[in-house]
């Protein structure tokens, strides 16, 4: 029997997420954002959350809706400020949300390290900049590096294109972004997909996230948003 649970509703998929959890939220802007899982999480009521994501929400959908509902204590992200991040901007200016800015590549690699069992790693990114202040530096073969630690999630909420009944995942285009990395870095990975197909129907050579990383899957109606004002 498959260890991955295929669930009927998004509400079931996010059941049990505790107050104070650290949640990795997929998406780059709105591409790959798990809208339905986040809406269900808002209904579920978990609060005092730490969110790890690339951005801090766009307009009032997805992550921005969770911020607006005041469920987030702290956010780790690379690029909070965007043309339509007004929900975050206001919370930040009022001192109602804590922000840790992490360079995008380090954000991804720190989650990769968590999923791969790496204790820490030396990255050349941010050497000599304000974001390296207070961090251990080492020169290796004449190059300067900064020590970076893994970022683990209690949960990952991500979206993918298709899953089979075992939880093997394929993604669509650049909506893949953080999904495969976050899936490896959380204790419980919850995925919304556009379609669940029978096991054996995905091309085994094309599976991006193997089922071992996936705990819960729910099929939802695909919702498409683009960032207004992006240029």
């Amino acid at each position, binding site marked *: 029997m498959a260890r991955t649970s295929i669930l009927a509703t998004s509400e079931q998929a996010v059941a049990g997420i505790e107050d104070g959890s650290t949640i990795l939220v997929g998406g*780059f*802007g*709105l*591409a*790959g954002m798990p809208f339905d899982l986040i809406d269900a999480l808002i209904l579920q009521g978990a609060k005092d959350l730490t969110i790890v994501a*690339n951005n801090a929400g766009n307009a009032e959908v997805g992550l921005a809706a969770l911020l607006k509902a005041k469920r987030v204590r702290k956010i780790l992200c*690379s*690029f*909070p*400020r*965007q043309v339509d991040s007004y929900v975050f*901007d206001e919370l*930040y*200016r009022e001192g109602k949300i804590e*922000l840790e*800015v*992490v*360079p*995008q*590549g*380090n*954000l*991804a*690699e720190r*989650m*990769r390290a968590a999923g791969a069992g790496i204790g820490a790693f030396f*990255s*050349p*990114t*941010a*050497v*000599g*900049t*304000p*974001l390296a202040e207070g961090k251990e530096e080492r020169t290796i073969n004449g190059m300067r590096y900064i020590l970076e630690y893994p970022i683990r999630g209690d949960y990952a909420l991500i979206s993918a294109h298709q899953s089979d009944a075992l939880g093997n995942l394929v*993604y*669509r*285009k*650049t*909506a*893949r*972004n*953080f*999904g*495969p*990395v976050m899936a490896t870095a959380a204790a419980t990975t919850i995925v919304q997909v556009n379609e669940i197909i029978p096991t054996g129907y995905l091309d085994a050579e094309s599976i*991006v996230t193997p089922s071992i990383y996936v705990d819960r899957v729910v099929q939802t109606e695909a919702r*498409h*948003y*683009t*960032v207004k004002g*992006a*240029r």
Partner: protein
Amino acid sequence: MTADTSTRAPLTMDQLAAVIAHDIPEGSYVNLGIGQPTKIADHLPKDKSGTVNVILHTENGMLGMGRKAEGDEVDADLTNAGKVPVVETPGCSYFHHADSFAMMRGGHLDVCVLGAFQVAPNGDLANWSTGKPGDIPAVGGAMDLAIGAKDVYVMMSLFAKDGTPKLVQACTMPLTGINCVSRVYTDYGVFDLGPDGARIRATFGITPDELCAKVAALHR
């Protein structure tokens, strides 16, 4: 080439984009930063069959990125790093974020072109934060990109709105990366950065002497 004073006026950003596009060797893997550098994509030379022989990387997870999507082509699952919907090119590929930045950090990209607030002759770059109190900090991929290609070029106007040069002896704004920029393309000239400082490669609508008089970081 040390000086090209054939242009009577400084270049527009579109003309500058064309200059950069023609300097990128055929076959290169290139990342164009958000803002002015994205214009370079419109000027990349095409071969006889109409194919652009430069492969564009977008850090949100794609090689072989095409132009901006129009009308029915818009697909919310396919955007560039500026979150603008784009199209595929034949032979494009998708990958996740850790792979995308590993590709960058690992030195596999040939050229990266970035915008800048300030650049110094030693290759220091400031392009992520003006350092003004009250600004919300946001770095995105800027620090990864700054160290993430064999050649990192800057494309910028040479002078800020207040008339001060953006090529400076030492950056005063928060740094994005150190010793990372190898060439600076501006509306008034192109400068190669190296151990001897900033060397004038070309000028536009101004003589090298006039330029050195205006920009303290430049020497003849």
